[in-house]
């Protein structure tokens, strides 16, 4: 009668994860999910900026079809009344629920996260989301600023919490509720971090002593980079701690020490995110849903950490477009569920020593626009038809073919890699 779906989408997360070969990061819970999943090493977003990427993968259409390249139009009015992936699941008997940042808020999702079309109940937004860009970062002067680098004492934060903590709590509450009611569900959880400001519980800094943090391997603007290709990272320049550096426009560079602080805080924010994902998956297990729920883990795009003299997304570089993408499907990618043992026990990033063994990895080039058709196939629903050349008047079709065929691709034995080191990195 169809699997439940837990769809986890993370804001601005590049594959800085143990299961993608990163040696510095502490991401035990996401690595544990990867060890029970098929992991795609070469997954790319259609556009390296929030709203266009999210509307693209949630409708299964490319930006040239959603005609959303910025943040200021709603596809149903502006381009075509395209069905969305959650809408499709809703029309097929699922209760669909959104927690946190799944659609980009504002015009591009009709100020409603596309409710009621996409969701069965009004989407949940953490009450502390509204403080995201407030002056909550304590500077060296002891005053509060709106900084880029922003390790915080959570108890000092408005309401004594942070948006992603609230999202995890709400998602766990909803899982319990849907289990009790025996409802088949599509639950989408959108985490905000590591999107800027890099605001996270300050204790995560302990995981990444600054002396261990290097610059990017190529922190200069490449000689032959066409100027049109360069992203001048305007958004981070507007943060208080960057403003005071008086960095020249457009090429900077940022002072090396500050570059390392940004990289340090990005990693710390990733481990904070990993803790949230660990709490959510541990609850999935505890509630007894991990053998009837497939889990998808991905991001809307990547983030430049100083490579090519760039920061943030807003470009076509791999570091800005490549995303983590993994699918846990009980009985397909993992047999553990049937043995009745816990699959996703919470792993503490501060104490867990990585013992990652990957089940399966595909190196195929895949795109986020394929998510819609892939999840439909995995859930046993009719896969939406391929779109015609021009599909503005077609409500249900997809411009991304399902990638389930790569789950057990014969010509490429699923990698059983011991150290999780990623060929793409090896290359």
């Amino acid at each position: 009668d169809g699997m439940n779906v837990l769809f986890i989408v993370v804001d601005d997360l590049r594959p800085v994860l143990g299961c993608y070969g990163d040696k510095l990061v502490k991401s035990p819970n996401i690595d544990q999910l990867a060890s029970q999943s098929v992991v795609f090493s070469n997954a790319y977003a259609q556009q390296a900026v929030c709203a266009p990427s999210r509307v693209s993968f949630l409708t299964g259409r490319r930006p040239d079809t959603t005609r959303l390249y910025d943040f200021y139009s709603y596809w149903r009015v502006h381009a075509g009344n395209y069905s969305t992936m959650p809408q499709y699941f809703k029309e097929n008997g699922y209760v669909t629920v959104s927690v946190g940042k799944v659609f980009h808020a504002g015009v591009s999702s009709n100020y409603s996260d596309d409710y009621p079309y996409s969701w069965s109940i009004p989407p949940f937004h953490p009450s502390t989301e509204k403080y995201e860009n407030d002056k909550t970062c304590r500077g060296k002067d002891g005053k509060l600023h709106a900084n880029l680098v922003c390790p915080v004492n959570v108890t000092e934060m408005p309401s004594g919490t942070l948006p992603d903590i609230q999202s995890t709590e709400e998602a766990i509450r909803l899982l319990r509720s849907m289990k009790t009611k025996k409802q088949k569900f599509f639950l989408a959880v959108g985490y905000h971090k590591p999107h800027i400001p890099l605001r996270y519980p300050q204790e995560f800094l302990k995981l990444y002593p600054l002396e261990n943090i290097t610059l990017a391997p190529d922190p200069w603007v490449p000689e032959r980079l066409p100027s049109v290709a360069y992203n001048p990272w305007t958004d981070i320049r507007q943060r208080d701690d960057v403003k005071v550096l008086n960095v020249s426009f457009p090429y900077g560079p940022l002072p090396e020490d500050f570059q390392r602080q940004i990289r340090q805080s990005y990693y710390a924010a990733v481990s904070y995110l990993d803790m949230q994902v660990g709490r959510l998956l541990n609850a999935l297990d505890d509630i007894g849903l991990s053998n009837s729920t497939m889990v998808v883990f991905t991001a809307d795009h990547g983030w430049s950490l100083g490579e090519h003299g760039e920061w943030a997304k807003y470009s076509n570089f791999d570091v800005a477009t490549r995303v983590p993408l993994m699918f846990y499907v009980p009985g397909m990618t993992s047999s553990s569920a049937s043995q009745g043992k816990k699959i996703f026990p919470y792993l503490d990033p501060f104490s867990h020593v990585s013992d990652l063994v990957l089940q399966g990895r595909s190196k195929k080039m895949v795109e986020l626009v394929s998510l819609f058709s892939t999840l439909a196939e995995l859930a046993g629903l009719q896969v939406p038809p391929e779109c015609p050349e021009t599909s503005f008047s077609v409500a249900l079709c997809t411009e991304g073919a399902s990638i389930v065929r790569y789950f057990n691709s014969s010509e490429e034995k699923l990698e059983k890699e011991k150290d999780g080191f990623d060929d793409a990195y090896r290359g």
Partner: protein
Amino acid sequence: YNEEPVAFSQYPRPADTPQWNSDKPKLKDIRVMGYSMRTHDYRYTLWVGFNPSNFSADFKDVHAGELYMVESDPHQDYNIYNNTLHGGLFKKIL
């Protein structure tokens, strides 16, 4: 099924040189679109003229190009677009 999988991305720009809205140009200010095609071996990008009023990209109006070979340049630091014949790639991205 037999075709080599390719990943396409794109990014808009308001001008050929960086300016304050280069990161997030509003639709009405987009003048160039960078279309990228990725395979295991390379990333090929064409920055072409774009008309926001009718959403058309003009592949005859190429503002710039990028070509990086994954094997020899995994970090994409050495753009070899200018000194290579790439008619085949141009046809392929079209």
